[in-house]
């Protein structure tokens, strides 16, 4: 084994009373892909922020190629050959690809050295198979391309170690393969890579070695992730066994939601074209598809944000007339939007307010046109307890909660009113195993109680596990519907590309 590229020894970092990292040791050798595994809040991001100079550690030291270095800021980290691709990209959308690369790079006689920048970009593109048009503004790039730009940016600055913080969280499954191929090629050419994730299958597929963090400490080290079972690694992450939820057989009842020939126009993104589908009581319908094939329009129509241009929709036998969120809610629709932070709740208001927001004018929370703060607070407190939402209290700013707790809060808000139909988009995106399991159990419990649920998602394994039937969307149409017993990842994947369409009455 070659000498480590980077070594972290005894890193400890506290925020107030919370120990985010405690005596963590970690090393990466050239050519190695190290997995850093852990649940949300286990201290993965904090540890990497220490390495990248965003936080100063309380104790411990960092060695680069055997020499101790002091990293006070990102400039020091870059100088030491450490590059980081953050979960939220650090790019300026209105500047071009090249300008984003050249930021902070000294120019030639006072001018930006475009020619050299272009040459370097071409070189990196060729070496690692990462190409981008240098003159496009970043806003014109897809999420996957923006991530590629972040990787190129790090390499551009001569990074020998690349840290990627949950890089797959934002990618579609097809983009993940491309990322993995690029990372493998970089490692093969002698770079060190730290891959942060809580997705076990990815860590097992990609990394050479992995370190598992739990509550800020190293909970275990796995030397051969590919040969270690997911269950074993999940146990290290959570500290206890994870039992998959049991889906009981159910007999679906009458249709609670039907869409008949719905088409849309004037929507940002792919419009719907003649979409018909139905969900019965006690049934979960999964909607699969490559992102951008009309899923957003479908979710917006069903939740009343986008009146369709043609077609009809019924909820529990009643025809929807105005397509306003309020009307649909009154008919018994619950909705968990894709983006928790923007359309889900108001991050700057207290959690309690966000939890009653859709029903703020109803009798439960107001009297004679005035809010009833006691009722709002009591409702929030009850839900916080029932759903084990970890927060200092109902009056905390909603934005301060972690993703998993926010999702629980949104779920609590909808389920408390016993919806007949529930529409959810990407229900567990960015959540760790524990939180995702909790959400899945709640869906199955609602199904058992006779709620019809539509789950729009990109995680095919999750859809297969939850759904009774799966419909695949392609270019704004339903390309086909399968009972999940007949569906496999391969078959769905084929349908998602528009090939092998199966027509069946939905």
């Amino acid at each position, binding site marked *: 084994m070659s000498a480590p590229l980077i070594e972290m020894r005894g890193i400890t970092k506290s925020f107030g009373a919370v120990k985010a990292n405690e005596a963590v040791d970690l090393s990466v050798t050239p050519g190695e892909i190290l997995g850093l595994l852990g649940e949300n809040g286990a201290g993965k991001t904090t540890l990497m922020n220490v390495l990248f100079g965003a936080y100063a550690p309380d104790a411990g030291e960092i060695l680069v190629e055997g020499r101790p270095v002091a990293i006070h800021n990102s400039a020091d980290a870059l100088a030491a050959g450490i590059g980081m691709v953050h979960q939220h990209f650090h790019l*300026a*959308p209105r500047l071009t690809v090249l*300008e984003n690369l050249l930021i902070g790079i000294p*120019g030639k006689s006072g001018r930006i050295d475009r020619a050299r920048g272009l040459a370097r970009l071409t070189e990196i593109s060729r070496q690692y198979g990462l190409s981008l048009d240098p003159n496009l503004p970043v806003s014109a790039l897809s999420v996957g391309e923006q991530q590629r730009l972040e990787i190129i940016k790090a390499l551009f600055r001569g990074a020998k170690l690349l840290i990627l913080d949950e890089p797959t969280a934002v990618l579609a499954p097809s983009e993940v393969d491309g990322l993995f191929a690029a990372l493998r090629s970089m490692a093969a050419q002698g770079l060190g890579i730290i891959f942060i994730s809580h997705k076990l299958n990815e860590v097992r597929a990609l990394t050479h070695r992995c370190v598992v963090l739990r509550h800020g400490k190293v909970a275990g080290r796995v030397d051969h992730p590919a040969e270690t079972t997911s269950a074993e690694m999940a146990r290290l992450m959570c500290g206890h066994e994870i039992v998959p939820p049991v889906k009981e057989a159910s007999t679906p009842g009458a249709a609670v939601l039907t869409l008949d020939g719905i088409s849309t126009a004037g929507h940002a993104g792919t419009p719907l074209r003649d979409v018909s589908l139905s969900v019965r009581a006690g049934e979960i319908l999964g909607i699969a598809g490559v992102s951008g094939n009309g899923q957003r329009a479908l979710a917006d129509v069903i939740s009343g944000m986008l009146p369709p241009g043609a077609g009809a929709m019924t909820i529990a036998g009643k025809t929807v007339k105005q397509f306003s969120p309020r009307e649909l809610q009154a008919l018994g629709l619950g909705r968990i939007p894709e983006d928790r932070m923007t359309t889900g709740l108001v991050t700057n208001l207290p959690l309690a307010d966000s939890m009653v927001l859709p029903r703020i004018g109803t009798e439960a929370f107001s009297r004679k046109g005035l809010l009833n703060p006691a009722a709002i607070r009591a409702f929030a407190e009850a839900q916080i307890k029932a759903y084990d939402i970890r927060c200092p209290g109902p009056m905390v700013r909603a934005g301060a909660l972690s993703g998993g707790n926010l999702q629980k809060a949104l779920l609590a808000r909808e389920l408390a009113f016993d919806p007949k139909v529930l529409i959810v988009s990407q229900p567990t995106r960015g959540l760790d195993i524990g939180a995702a399991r909790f959400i899945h159990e709640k869906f199955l419990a609602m199904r058992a109680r006779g709620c019809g649920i539509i789950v729009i998602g990109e995680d095919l394994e999750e859809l297969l596990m939850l759904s009774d039937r799966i419909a695949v969307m392609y270019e704004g149409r339903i390309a086909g519907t399968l009972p999940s017993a007949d569906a496999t990842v391969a078959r769905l994947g084929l349908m998602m590309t528009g090939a092998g369409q199966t027509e069946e009455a939905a």
Partner: protein
Amino acid sequence: MSAVFEQIFQVGFLAAIVRIATPLAFATLGEMFSERAGVLNLGIEGIMLLSAMAGFTAASLSGSLWLGVLVAVLVGALMGALHALFTVALGLSQHVCGIGVTLFSSGLAYFLYRLIFGQQSVPPSIDGFKPVPIPLLSDIPILGPAVFNQFTLVYMAIIAVPLAAFVLYRTPWGLSVRMVGENPRAADSAGVSVMATRFQAVILGGALMGLAGAFLTMAQFNAFTFGVVSGRGWVAIALVVFGRWDPWRSAGAALLFAFVDALQLRMQASGLGHIPYEAFLMLPFIFTIVAMAFMSRNAVAPSALLKPFRREER
């Protein structure tokens, strides 16, 4: 109507446009640099007034106009630094601090002016800058005497526009300015100091606002009065939006505003006596509002404008 056209193509009219546009161009470029770095500077009106006063005073006491200009620029830069201290270093509200800077600078200008010159029935004046014709170029018909027989400060404004565009788009520092105004976190993670870059941009902006003030008291009016700036700073803020935060477009916006202003001055003088002159005074501002309403629709402000940057906050 043809009479109006005749007016437009007179040398005097064109020269007036150039003269009116000069302080606006300096102020607009100054505000643009500040906003490009993510800092709105509502102190502009006060900074211009204080610089105009300081420059005038220095010139009047020393007898050197260029010393006056230098003092005005330094005072502008200093007030820019004050604004940056509040908004960049301390991360306070840019709106509130900007208005504070304007009120403070205006008050200080009045106070110091009274202290130095006392109460006089006729405001003291200086022998201001004289036009400096540029050989050959000033011989071009119409354009020559209008553009190339002007004050040195006018030429400086004409040069300042391409210079500002060069600095903003072609130099590493300009790229840093644009980056900290769009996504300071990105600049920070690339090793660029957000605080230093913002300070520099706001100070440069203040210096340019100081030049605008110097022009008013040392070339245009040759005296200081309390109404010497009279809203030109506020107009510059609108012109930055109108010019979509771009030096060339901002300068164009300043020229357009100057055209309407020069036009209304002519209209006041041209015997439409039955209309109160205040009605003409309103024209450039009405024009600005209308133009803004159409032009600013597609204008996208720097993403991080008004947002203070703190590193450990996520």
